[in-house]
């Protein structure tokens, strides 16, 4: 009998603890499939954030290091510099990467660290219960912005892909979403490229993924993708923001 589908070897046979309609599970699977396809399971080291994905190491079947809030790019740098033969990726939420860890992501990118960053942007603090994130939309309600985000006092949503793509050290940045099967396949392709770049020594690659958090957005699980398509994508347009993958092969 021909196997047409199976669970990636890079995932353990355990249940995800994520809420109904949450995007983390889909993204975990995409990353695991890519790692299987590239045949790098045993030399991959993941770096888990503080956020809903803090237990990522329970789901993934390879080496992991759990980082302090926001510090995943620094931890990934430490691992990659001490063991250049490993394939290292950080997996971070928007609070982790774009608020408390802003310095670490900018400087890892600027150094052109040969690592891969999976940036899960759900425009909210999931783990701690729906507080405002740096990526929360103007007018969007959060538990710490009960009247909606007011840009006069709370600033505007930070566009990380746009910001980082201005840095010389960055090789590849793409923003994707996991709203439809087609977009999910695009996200997977981007993730694969971001890992392939590291294997090729091409330098810093990040894939931003707009992801659902229906629980903290206060919408039904089925309406999560609708919010992304109608609201998030307007502020965070999908697409490739920088791509020097070919030129930089073998550079690291």
């Amino acid at each position, binding site marked *: 009998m021909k196997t047409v589908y199976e669970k990636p070897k890079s995932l353990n046979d355990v249940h995800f603890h994520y809420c109904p309609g949450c995007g983390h599970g889909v993204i975990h699977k995409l990353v695991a499939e890519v790692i299987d396809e590239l045949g790098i399971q045993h030399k991959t080291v993941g770096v888990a954030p503080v956020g809903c994905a803090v237990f990522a190491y329970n789901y993934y079947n390879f080496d992991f290091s759990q980082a*302090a809030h926001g510090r995943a790019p*620094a931890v990934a740098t*430490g691992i990659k510099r*001490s063991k250049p033969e490993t394939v290292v990726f950080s997996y971070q939420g928007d609070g982790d990467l774009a608020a408390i860890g802003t310095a*670490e992501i900018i*400087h890892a990118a600027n150094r052109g660290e040969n690592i891969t960053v999976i940036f899960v942007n759900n425009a909210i603090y999931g783990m701690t219960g729906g507080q405002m994130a740096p990526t929360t939309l103007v007018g969007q309600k959060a538990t710490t912005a009960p009247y909606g985000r007011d840009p006069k006092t709370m600033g505007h949503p930070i566009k990380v892909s746009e910001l980082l793509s201005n840095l010389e050290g960055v090789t590849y940045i793409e923003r994707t979403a996991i709203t439809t099967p087609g977009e999910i396949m695009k996200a997977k392709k981007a993730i694969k490229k971001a890992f392939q770049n590291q294997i090729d020594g091409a330098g810093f690659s990040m894939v931003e993924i707009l992801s659902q958090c229906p629980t903290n957005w206060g919408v039904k699980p089925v309406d999560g993708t609708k919010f992304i398509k109608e609201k998030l994508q307007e502020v965070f347009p999908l697409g490739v923001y920088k791509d020097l993958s070919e030129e930089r092969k073998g550079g690291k």
Partner: protein
Amino acid sequence: MAKEFIKGNEAIGKAAIMAGLDCYFGYPITPQSEIPEYLAAEMPKVGKVFLQAESEVAAINMVYGAAGTGIRVMTSSSSPGISLKVEGISYIASAELPCVIVNVQRGGPGLGNIAPEQADYFQATKGGGHGNYRLLVLAPDSAQEMADFTMLAFDLAEKYRNPVMILADGCLGQMKEAVEFKKTVRKEYNKDWTIGRGEKDHKVISSIDIEPEKLEQRNLKLLDKYKTMEKEEVLFEEYLCDDADLVLVAYGITSRVARSAVELAREKGIKLGLFRPKTLFPFPKKDIYRVSQKAKKMLTCELSTGQMVEDVKLNSHKDTEVYFYGRCGGVIPADLELLEQAQKVLDGKGVRF
């Protein structure tokens, strides 16, 4: 072997490379910048990693990442920078990762100044960051010990899978002295807990235990380790304590001044002694007790408003009188000043702690 005339900070850098340092991550701050400067020049020559991080926060988290792979890794800073590192240090201690952290203390609190102080004693020995953890803390008193203790620190860090701190100060860091670099034999420790080996038995480096009972077990395991350190790793030096009427207790640069005060006193027939802890954690509790029981009077001298003196008091015999004399803000007392203070205590005019 020939001696080399070298700054304390550079002695740390050189000794670290001799001990097999693989990666250094740090951020500039006076009065320790000669450590990263030395390593920036020397690490590439031996094919090792030097990286200037964007902050102390980033540096300690790079250390966390690298330490998980089981290589030899070090960071260094001075007081305000160490304050920034403590969250990361707590994670490293909880995940039981070996690394060496150097604190070349400067004047505080706040931005303070760049002159020597010993006011980070509490931070270094009582945890500093959150949670039940301890660092193994070594307190050198010379450029020679900056080198010796650096080599020792890497070994202890791997032996206990625990961060080891070298608690120096701006004076020791900046002072040039003759140092003999004694190459030690590197002990090999089990590395099958590390990540990044490319093996199929995958490992996780983490400090999170959601279940209270599990986290309690982690804490108790750490406590066991600290108790073993207290049994096996205490280092101290006694100088003329046997017949002393008053024993000065001091570590680091202050112990150098205190030693000189003891010598001056002895020339005059005044019986002073010196007790110098070399490990601040584990603290030489039993030996303080033994010495205090005999001497009846102890005078703790520090570049602080009174930190180590609490441990001296806690561990001294109940009938022993414990006194304190401290200067801070970067002021270092002269030997005559300490002698004068000792004389006051002996004349019954000292202020008890």
